[in-house]
């Protein structure tokens, strides 16, 4: 799949030059907001208690790593599952189409928290009853919490993105595929060279939003004893009896992550200007 080439040469007219970034940042409302934010930060640093921070930094780092791993792994695997889920809903035979639709509807129609608990307490307990499983190498993983958190997040992302990809595949103009067909491309070539890259490109704006949503779902893994960033912050709150400082810290970290994600995805999107 080396030639997927969703992102072609970097001759992007929509690219942000340093000068343009300066102009954007210089707009009045942005300046005002930045000043407000800065003063808030100064006040927070001076008026609040941050003495706990250095001592917890290593733990916070581990938590952040866990959060990021949950996010990245579930997004990647979930997206890979979303492709066939979307595809069979557009062009599959009816049993597959029906199964995919049922899966997406069921997962999207129930709370993620519930799914996670069902997997962790339900599936986890079932596994524990089989000596074969308890004795196998897999048990080292299956008795931990994170595989269930990862599984629940992945399933959820796959279901939502399956729906997005269904729309994206269906939305690629018929004529573009027909041109590929008329020039003698095989079905696989049509998929790989035209249908798939076009669908992904069409889905990217939605995908960006969904990845942010996924980031905001990751704290749920703390409820099944996975030590992500949120779980570490909870420990801090219990140990220090502080309420606002740890929570504010959490807000700042999630905001930074969201911001970085938005920038990265926008950059990706701008690499192929389609100018609908």
């Amino acid at each position, binding site marked *: 799949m080396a030639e997927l080439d969703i992102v072609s040469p970097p001759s992007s007219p929509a690219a942000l030059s340093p000068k343009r970034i300066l102009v954007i940042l210089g707009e009045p409302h942005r300046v005002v907001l930045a000043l407000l934010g800065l003063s808030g930060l100064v006040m927070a640093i001076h008026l609040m208690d941050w003495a706990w921070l250095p001592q917890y930094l290593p733990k916070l780092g581990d938590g952040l790593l866990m959060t990021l791993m949950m996010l990245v792994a579930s997004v990647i695997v979930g997206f890979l599952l979303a492709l066939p889920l979307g595809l069979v809903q557009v062009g599959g035979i009816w049993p597959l189409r029906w199964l995919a639709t049922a899966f997406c509807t069921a997962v999207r129609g129930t709370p993620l928290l519930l799914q996670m608990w069902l997997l962790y307490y339900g599936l986890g307990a079932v596994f524990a009853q089989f000596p074969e499983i308890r004795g196998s190498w897999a048990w080292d993983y299956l008795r931990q919490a994170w595989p269930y958190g990862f599984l629940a997040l992945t399933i959820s992302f796959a279901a939502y993105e399956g729906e997005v990809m269904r729309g994206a595949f269906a939305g690629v103009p018929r004529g573009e595929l027909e041109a590929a067909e008329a020039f003698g491309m095989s079905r696989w070539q049509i998929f790989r060279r035209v249908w798939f890259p*076009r669908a992904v490109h069409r889905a990217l704006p939605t995908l960006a939003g969904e990845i942010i949503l996924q980031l905001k779902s990751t704290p749920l893994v703390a409820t099944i004893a996975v030590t992500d960033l949120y779980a570490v912050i909870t420990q801090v709150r219990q140990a220090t009896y502080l309420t606002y400082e740890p929570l504010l810290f959490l807000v700042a970290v999630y905001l930074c992550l969201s911001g970085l994600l938005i920038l990265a995805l926008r950059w990706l999107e701008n690499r192929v200007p389609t100018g609908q």
Partner: protein
Amino acid sequence: MQHQSATRVVTQPQNDAAKSATAESAVEIHDLHKSFGGVDVLKGISLTARQGDVVAIIGGSGSGKSTLLRCVNLLETPTSGQIAIQGEPYRMRAGKNGALVPADRRQIQRIRAHLGMVFQSFNLWPHRTVLENVMEVPVHVLKTPREEARARASTLLDRVGLGDKLDAYPSFLSGGQQQRAAIARVLAVDPLAMLFDEPTSALDPELVGEVLSVIRDLAAEHRTMLLVTHEMAFARDVATHVVFLRDGIIEEQGSPTQIFESPRSEHLKQFIKSVA
């Protein structure tokens, strides 16, 4: 090209004195029928284009012009009848309900790769630059070495007046430029015959001329073409043969002079008057 006389049902066209006796048939259509869900759209079309012929297909909207053209590269599967490209008939077999189905996908893909089609709505691939659009089929279908394909693509784009737009994405071009790029995409496969389906119908009037002049040059080089068009003056100018389609049958055909100066059928007379 391959000759399979045994399976050829098509009668040889009678060579008139003007054409050399060696002129081989590029496209032969024999007793072609096509129906969509019981509605007969083509009702027995027989038509031959020899190499170097420019066959203009005219007729009212809904008369079956596009369907006829799309049967030639099997974008539509004929209900019955034979089609041969350079003497090689498409291998078809009878399907369940008596209608034909393609018997050999590879053969179809091989023939299609040498039958370029120019669509009314251009149908360039928007996620690739103009140059990449023209290189796509030579590189990925015909397996031409990339550098060779690139050199040829840029020569062809130069030829259609897009030498300065190689790295532009299609959506940044005017309709006329996109259609000229689409013509270059066809030329890049060294087409045995070029299929044009109303190539100027989607264009603003001031852009029609630039596309017609490219097609005129190709006709002057004796490229084989099947050209569906509403531009009567143009058809009269460049065509070697004009076919008037009405209600799925060829109501009249002949030289441009015959068709436009002494039409026999009432419908053709009316049609010419209505579009003049």
